[in-house]
C-alpha cells in the first residue's frame, strides 16, 4: 500500500522536473513555513545572545579599566629621594619635575596616553597666622585627573586659589586670600571651595606657574595616571625607575591590585552569565529543532520508501538545519551587535563596537547546535518501519 500511495507522488515530482537536493530543501522549508520560521527564530536568538555576550565580554577589559580612571593617580613620582629628610618640600637638586622636557621624558618612558600632573608644595601662613599647605597645580590637569574633587567652579585666571574646605576655616578673608611664604606675601582671589574628604581639604591650591613665581619652589611630585591593568602599570613603573633613578616611583598598590581583582571578578561573572544563558538557549533550541525533526517521521518514511538511504536522509535534515542556522547567524549577528552596542552606550556611555572576528565563533556555535538537533533524533528514526508508519500504525 505505501508504495502504491507513493508512486503517484513520485510521478508528479518527475513530471515537473527531476528530484534535486536544493529543490527538495527549498520545498521542504517553504512548505512548512510556520515550523521553519520558529526554527529560524530559535537559531537567531541563539546567535544574537552569543554575539551580544561575546562582544561585551571582549570589550569589558577596556570599559572597566576606563571606569577605574575615576580613582585618580595610580603612580606617584616623588623628587625627595630620602624620606623623612630635613626639608621634604625642597626637591632634590637637578630635578625640575614641572619642566616640559622632564614631563616629555616621563611620557616617553611610561607611554604617551599617560596623564602626568606635576604638583609643588610649600607651607605658608594664612592671614590668621595658621600654617597651611599650599599646592601649585595646573587646574585643567587636576580636573582631568581628580574627577572626585568637588569644586564649585574651576578657576581659570592665574591669580585664583581653590580653598580646601577645612583650610577655608583658617582664612579670614576668603575673597582676597593673603598667604605668606618665607616673608613674601601674596594675595590671591578666592575661587571657591574644594571638598574631597581627604588631605586636600586642609590645603590651598593655586596655579603652578604663579606658585613657582611666588615661592621659587618647583614641583616635587608628579602624579601619574596610567591606563590599563596591573601588568601595564608594573611595566611603566619599571621603565620610570630605570629612566629616573634619583626619583622615588611608587605605585598606589591598593588601587592597582584592587582594579585587577575587580576586573577579573567581573570577567568571571560575565563568563558565568554567558555560559548559563548560552546553555539555556542552546538546549531550548535543541529541544525545538529535534522535536520538529521527530515530527517529520512521515516525510522520512516516505523518502525511505522511495529508496533514499539513511545517509541521504540525514544529509537532507542536516543541510536543512545548516541553512536555517546560517540564516540565523546573519540575523543574530546583526541584532546581537546592535544589542551589545546599546548596552555599552546605556551602561558605560560609550558604544561597544561590533567585532567581525566573533562571526566565525558564533557561526560555529550555531552550526553545532543545529547539527546536533538534526542528528540527535537519527537513532529514533533508524528503527523506523516505513510501511507501518505510512499506513498510520
Amino acid at each position, binding site marked *: 500500500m505505501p508504495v502504491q500511495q507513493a508512486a503517484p507522488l513520485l510521478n508528479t515530482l518527475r513530471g515537473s522536473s527531476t528530484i534535486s537536493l536544493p529543490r527538495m530543501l527549498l520545498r521542504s522549508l517553504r512548505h512548512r513555513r510556520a515550523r521553519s520560521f*520558529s*526554527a529560524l*527564530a*530559535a537559531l537567531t*536568538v541563539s546567535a544574537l*545572545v552569543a554575539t*551580544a*555576550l561575546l562582544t561585551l565580554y571582549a570589550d569589558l577589559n577596556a570599559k*572597566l579599566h576606563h*571606569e*577605574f580612571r*575615576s*580613582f585618580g593617580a595610580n603612580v606617584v613620582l*616623588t623628587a625627595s629621594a630620602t*624620606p*623623612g629628610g630635613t626639608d621634604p618640600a625642597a626637591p632634590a637638586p637637578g630635578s625640575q619635575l614641572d619642566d616640559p622636557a622632564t614631563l616629555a621624558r616621563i611620557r616617553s618612558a611610561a607611554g604617551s596616553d599617560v596623564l602626568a600632573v606635576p604638583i609643588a*608644595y610649600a607651607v605658608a601662613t594664612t592671614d590668621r597666622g595658621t*600654617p597651611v*599647605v599650599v599646592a601649585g597645580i595646573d587646574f585643567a590637569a587636576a580636573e582631568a585627573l581628580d*574627577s*572626585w574633587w568637588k569644586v564649585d567652579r574651576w578657576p581659570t585666571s592665574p591669580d585664583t586659589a581653590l580653598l580646601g574646605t*577645612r583650610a577655608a576655616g*583658617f582664612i579670614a578673608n576668603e575673597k582676597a586670600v593673603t598667604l605668606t611664604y618665607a616673608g613674601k606675601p601674596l594675595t590671591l582671589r578666592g575661587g571657591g571651595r574644594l*571638598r*574631597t*574628604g*581627604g588631605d586636600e*581639604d*586642609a590645603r590651598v591650591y593655586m596655579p603652578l606657574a604663579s606658585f613657582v613665581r611666588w615661592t621659587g619652589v618647583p614641583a616635587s611630585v608628579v602624579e601619574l595616571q596610567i591606563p590599563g591593568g596591573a601588568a601595564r602599570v608594573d611595566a611603566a613603573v619599571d621603565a620610570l625607575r630605570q629612566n629616573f633613578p634619583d626619583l622615588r616611583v*611608587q605605585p*598606589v*598598590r*591598593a*588601587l592597582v*591590585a*584592587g582594579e585587577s*581583582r*575587580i576586573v577579573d571578578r567581573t570577567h*568571571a*561573572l*560575565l563568563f*558565568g*552569565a554567558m555560559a*548559563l*544563558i548560552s546553555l*539555556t*538557549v542552546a*538546549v*531550548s*533550541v535543541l*529541544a*525545538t529543532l529535534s*522535536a*520538529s525533526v521527530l*515530527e517529520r517521521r512521515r516525510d522520512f518514511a516516505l523518502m525511505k520508501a522511495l529508496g533514499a538511504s539513511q545517509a541521504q536522509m540525514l544529509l537532507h535534515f542536516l543541510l536543512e538545519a545548516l541553512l536555517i542556522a546560517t540564516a540565523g547567524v546573519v540575523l543574530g549577528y546583526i541584532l546581537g551587535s546592535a544589542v551589545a552596542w546599546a*548596552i555599552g552606550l*546605556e*551602561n*558605560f556611555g560609550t558604544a561597544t563596537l561590533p567585532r567581525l572576528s566573533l562571526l566565525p565563533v558564533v557561526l560555529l556555535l550555531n552550526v553545532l547546535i543545529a547539527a546536533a538537533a538534526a542528528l540527535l533524533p537519527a537513532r529514533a528514526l533508524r528503527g523506523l518501519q516505513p510501511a507501518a508508519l505510512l499506513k*498510520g500504525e
Partner: protein
Amino acid sequence: MFWRLLWESFARQRRRKLLAGTAIFLGVTAVTAMLGLATTIGNRIHLELAVYGANIVVLPKADTLEVTVGEQTLRPTTGNATLHESDLTKLRTIFWANNITGVSPELRTPLEVLAEGRGKTEIEALGLWFDHPLQAAGTPSLVTGARALHPSWKLQGRWPADKLAGKLDPESKDALSVETAVGSRLAARLNLHVGDTLLTAVPFPDADPPFVPLNLTLRVVGIVSAEDATDNTVLLPLALVQQIANTPDAVSRVEISATTKPEDAFARRDPDTLKPKDRDVWYCRPYANSIAYQIREAIPGAQAEQVRQVEQAEGTILGRISGLMWLISAAALLAAAVAVSAAMATAVLERRAEIGLMRSLGASKARVAALFYAEAGLLAVVAGTFGYVAGSVLAVLLTAKIFGGGVMLTHAFLPVLLPVVLAVALLVALAGSTPSIRGALRLDPNVVLRASA
C-alpha cells in the same frame, strides 16, 4: 473529562512534555540566577572595593590644620582636639548602623625607643584597634579595626593583641611587655625582625605636661607593609598609645567603611535646606552623605566627611557593574522567553491531529484552547518552580566561586523572586503557545485529520 484529558496528556506524552518542561526549567533557572546575581552583586563589589579603604572619615573639629604632604608630616600638629573613643559605640546606634562594616580609630604620639646598636631614636607610635569588639547596649558586636579597613596591607608575622597584659605603671620596676607590629620602612631602618624587642625606658625631657618615664618592652610580632606613611611607624594597641600620650580615651581620627548607595543629585542636597518630608527621605537613604550626617549628630565635636576619592569612584564602578548585570539579566529574560515560546509553539504544532480529533468529536474551540492553555500553565508552574530552586542555588554557587567565601544556601532563596519568575514563565508559556493554538484551531478538522491519517 477536562481534567482527565489534562492528566492523560501529561501521562502519555511524557517525552514531549519533558522537552517543553526542560526549556521552561532552563529558562527560569537562567533568569533566576541572573536576577539573584544582580541583586546581591552590590554587596559583593562593595566588599571587593573595601581594599580602597574607608569611605567616611571622622576628624575632630580642629583648631589647627594638619600639615601633611604625601607621606610626610611637615610640621607636627600640636594641641589638637581629639574625639572620645568611648563615643564610638554610638556608631552602632545610628539609623544606618548596620551599614557600617568597619571602624578604625587612630591616635599618634612620638615615642623614643632604644634599638640595638642605634641608641635612642625618636619614632612615631600609631595606636590602632586590630580586632576590637565594638558594641553598644542591645546591639550585636562588630569586631573591627585597622585590619578590616586595610585589606591591602601586607603583614609578615601576625597582628599584635588588642588587650594589654597590664597597666602602664610608672612605679613598677618591671617593664610592661607589649606586642607591636612595625612598619616595613622603619623595620629596615632599625634592622628589626619578627621576634626582636624594642625598649622604651626613656622619659621625655621636654614634654608638656611632663610624661612619666615609660617602661615598656615592645615585642615585634609582625612587620607591616602599607606603602604609605604607616610604614614609618610602630603600630601599637590604641589603649597603650593613649596611656603613653597621657590622653585617656582620645582618638585623633576615625576611618569608617560603610555600605552606601551611589550618590545621585538628591544625595548632594544640603539636608538643612530641605523640607521636613524630603529631609526624612534623605536621612533614611544610605548615602555616604547621610551616614556622615548621622555620625556628626551622634558624636559630639566630630567632623564626618565622605572620602570622595573612594566613595565617588566606588559609586561609579558599582553602578557600572550592577547596571551591566541588570541589562544582561534583561537580555537573558528576553532570550529565554523567545526560546521557551519556540519550544511551546512546537509542542502545540505537533499536536494538530489531536486538536482536529477533539474538534470533530464536538469540543468547542474555547474548550480545546482551555485544555492547551491549562497544559502550558501547569507545565510553566511546575518547571518554573524547579527552575527557581535550581537558579537560586546556581546564583549562590557562582557567587561563592567568583568572589570566594562560603556557600550559604540559607541566603540563596529570595522569596520575592519566586512570584516574579513564575509569572514570567506563565506569561511566556501562554504567549508562546497562543499563535500555534490559534493557527491549529483555525484549520478545518477534516483536512487535519486526513493529512495526518
